[in-house]
């Protein structure tokens, strides 16, 4: 299939000898194509400026240190759920075990996004899963967003956000595990820890991740988190947040 970004029309269906085909019209041309239309299209695409958000991300000032710098649901994000840990062999079964997003949005009492909003009952669970790291970025609250998916051989494709949180204050009982998880990630990547734009990994990196469940109420409306190339296969805004242990490679 073509790159999703290159499709400009996919509504035409033709029937020939009893078989139906969908025609997917794209902006893709052979590199050597020299017709005037192809040349002008190539020039237009080559001149295309990066998105404003990508430019902003590239010029953003890096957060210093490892302290958490956000406010939204800070109490929940910097705490470890008190519940037991359930181990999943496949990310799909973890995702299927979660309470539906629309039920969480309609949660009673309502999940607040203030700094002091702690975990709700459904979030008081810990999980552990073996999966693969496909992409990662660093947020300006100092969290690392990890986009974790199933093995490339498994279908359907499915990804979920898991976050290595910025660190809590020294008085927090979560400081030890959160520091250890963050250090494990940073020492695996060395000088190549991700920045504000997403890094993708090829092949995806095998990971064993443990952490607490967290419902991202902040993005229950509007744009959902995730890199545009994978977002359509991220079926939930539930996260593992914070990650309390990670083994890579």
């Amino acid at each position: 299939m073509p790159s999703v970004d290159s499709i400009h029309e996919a509504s035409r269906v033709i029937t020939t000898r009893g078989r139906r085909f969908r025609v997917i019209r794209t902006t893709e041309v052979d590199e050597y194509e020299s017709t005037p239309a192809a040349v002008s299209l190539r020039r237009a695409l080559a001149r295309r400026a990066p998105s404003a958000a990508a430019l902003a991300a590239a010029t953003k000032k890096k957060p210093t240190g490892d302290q958490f710098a956000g406010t939204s649901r800070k109490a929940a994000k910097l705490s470890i759920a008190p519940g037991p840990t359930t181990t999943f062999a496949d990310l799909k079964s973890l995702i299927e075990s979660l309470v539906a997003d629309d039920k969480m949005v309609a949660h009673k009492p309502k999940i607040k996004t203030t700094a002091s909003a702690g975990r709700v009952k459904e979030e008081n669970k810990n999980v552990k899963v073996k999966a693969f790291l496909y992409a990662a970025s660093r947020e300006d609250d100092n969290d690392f967003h990890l986009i974790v998916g199933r093995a490339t051989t498994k279908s359907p494709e499915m990804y979920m956000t898991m976050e290595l949180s910025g660190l809590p204050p020294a008085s927090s009982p979560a400081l030890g595990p959160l520091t250890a998880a963050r250090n494990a990630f940073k020492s695996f990547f060395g000088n190549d820890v991700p920045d504000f734009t997403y890094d993708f990994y090829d092949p995806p990196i095998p990971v064993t991740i443990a952490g607490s469940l967290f419902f991202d109420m902040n993005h229950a409306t509007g744009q959902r988190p995730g890199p545009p190339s994978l977002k359509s296969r991220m079926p939930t805004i539930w996260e593992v947040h914070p990650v309390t242990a990670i083994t890579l490679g």
Partner: protein
Amino acid sequence: MAKRRSRKARRKTPVAPRPGMPSPDSVREIVTKVAPTGMRFRILRTTEVDAYEKAPGPGKGTKGKSKARRSDGS
């Protein structure tokens, strides 16, 4: 008897990209990395950001200052 495809025909079969790769248009740099565990992999640095990331707003003192929502992670 099953027909054997010639080497030429096999070579022409398009290889589908594996799942989970970024849009080729977004890749700005590729580096090869060897992790401390010995795993060798490529890092594809892209221009992709979360869609809720704010675009640069107008400069200080500009009229009609944008009220872009702060991207407070998630």
